[in-house]
């Protein structure tokens, strides 16, 4: 008896064991190492020197760029996260429509996601070149003088967003898989009630995909703070440092200025910010994310119907 109950307690741990092993062997060492390094001055080419909270103090009191980059990244996240979610969801809805040829569109939307990030950055750099780029050339053909995309401070962030939305395909695919998993009878029942497509979307599809919505939301937040490759190759932080993202600043501190300790401090501050945002999202999620495991499937459907009727 005793053994059996032990086994029962151990079962969930056995399932997550692979991750725990991987975490202990591959992840936690480097994580703690970087945390320790954030209290050191480490120029990479020579031995680290302990500086206590020096890096953190410098960051908050002396480094203008820290605040500026933080604001840029927050601004980017504020625009990019909702935009990305809406576009991905919109596309996912489009490619689930039962029309001919939709398979081809599905593949077309997915292609940019498959293109290597280095090539995407170079491609958009070409397209958006203010003097000799294709986009402004096409605009000039219809008599519009295109903006100075990567030269003008007020346009550059927008240019980065255009280029990064190009890779929305993964998120689209996640939504798509989830939507495809909704059994048809749910809709059929709703159609009989005479619900309009918009209403169907908001009262059936959307609530049912909230778990993946939560996933995509959190991942977008994390990704937008860690955005490096694209800005590095497309704008390299310019023009006039207007796209000097927090992630790029961290990278430059580490590998350009050889201040690895300082970069580690940057990274851990970013960690706190993302963790805080994620916790906030999670906390709120109990109000808007519905899991079947929490309420029985039937109960939930009934709840939704009630909600619908109440409207």
């Amino acid at each position, binding site marked *: 008896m005793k053994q059996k109950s032990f086994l029962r307690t151990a079962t969930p741990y056995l399932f997550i064991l692979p991750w725990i092993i991987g*975490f202990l062997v591959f992840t936690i060492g480097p994580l703690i190492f970087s945390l320790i390094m954030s209290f050191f001055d480490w120029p990479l080419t020579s031995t680290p020197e302990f500086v206590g909270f020096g890096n953190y103090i410098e960051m908050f009191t002396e480094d203008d760029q820290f605040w500026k980059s933080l604001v840029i990244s927050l601004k980017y996240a504020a625009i990019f996260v909702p935009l990305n979610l809406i576009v991905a969801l919109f596309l996912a809805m489009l490619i689930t429509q039962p029309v001919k040829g939709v398979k081809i569109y599905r593949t077309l939307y997915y292609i940019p*996601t498959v293109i290597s990030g280095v090539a995407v950055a170079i491609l958009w750099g070409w397209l958006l070149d203010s003097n000799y780029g294709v986009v402004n050339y096409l605009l000039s053909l219809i008599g519009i003088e295109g903006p100075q995309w990567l030269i003008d401070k007020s346009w550059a962030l927008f240019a980065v967003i255009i280029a990064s939305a190009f890779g929305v395909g993964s998120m689209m695919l*996640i939504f798509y898989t989830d939507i495809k*998993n909704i059994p048809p009878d749910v809709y059929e029942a709703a159609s009989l009630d005479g619900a309009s497509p918009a209403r169907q979307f908001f009262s059936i599809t959307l609530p049912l995909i909230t778990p993946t919505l939560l996933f995509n939301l959190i991942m977008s937040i994390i990704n937008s703070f860690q955005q490096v490759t694209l800005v590095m190759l497309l704008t390299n932080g310019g023009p006039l440092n207007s796209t000097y993202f927090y992630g790029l600043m961290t990278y430059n501190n580490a590998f350009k200025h050889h201040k690895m300790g300082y970069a580690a401090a940057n990274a851990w501050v970013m960690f706190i910010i993302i963790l805080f945002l994620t916790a906030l999202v999670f906390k709120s999620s109990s109000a808007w994310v519905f899991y*079947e*495991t929490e309420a029985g499937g039937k109960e939930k459907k009934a709840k939704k119907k009630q909600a619908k009727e109440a409207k």
Partner: protein
Amino acid sequence: MSQMSLSKKSKVVIYILLTIMAIYFIAPFFYMFFTTFKTESEAIAYPPSLFPEVWHFENYINAWNAQPFGTYFINSVLVTAGTTLGQIVSCSLVAYGFARYNFKGKNILFMILLATMMIPWDVTMIPQYMEFNLFGWINTLKPLIVPAWFGSAYYIFLLRQFMMGIPKDFEEAARIDGCNPFQIYLKIFMPIIKPSLILIATLNMITVWNDYLGPLIFLQDRSKYTLALGLASFKGVHDTQIIPMLCITVIMIIPPIILFIIAQKYIVEGTSGSIK
């Protein structure tokens, strides 16, 4: 399948929307594609042209021969296949544990799992390098493949979300039939979540296929390079060899697209087994 029939009007609207979005997603790609057949001076000429004056099909052969891409291809396939298999096995196990059980410390462990994604790679890479160096794994494909067999937070989180959408009564029934927990996972859950497994396989394939920072740091000589690293090394300090780079980019998207087309079929097929 879902909304059985659409009116003609809404069909037209859908096609218009589909096409507008397609222009944004595909026009840059086509521009790139046609550029691969141009000479370099044609590619940078202004005003730009869409089609090359003369089609230089040999650009592709030259690009392929500029570096040992045959070797890179094999390495890329090894890494991609090795990690994808590992992710499916490990992530589904771990996600199952997190999604279907209540246990002590679950919430903290799950928060830790999420937190591991929040520290940028820049600052953990050096200690990681030291560790792999200690294992003697530097300049082998191991650092790129082995960690995937212990799950990745991103896919675990995603699978957990999918699994939490499955009603509880499901395993209750199986448990009454006398299945042990592992059997429930393997025989009942795996078939149900097949579409999501296909999804994480697809996502992992493109991520790993295009990853070049990992290979850059952990590999040394060209016999170990992957395609993505070969692609990135067309970019020099002062000069980028743009045409060969774009040619390899085009070649590189063929395998993932083929796999995607196949995967699409399975993601849709999965619906039949759905139980939401």
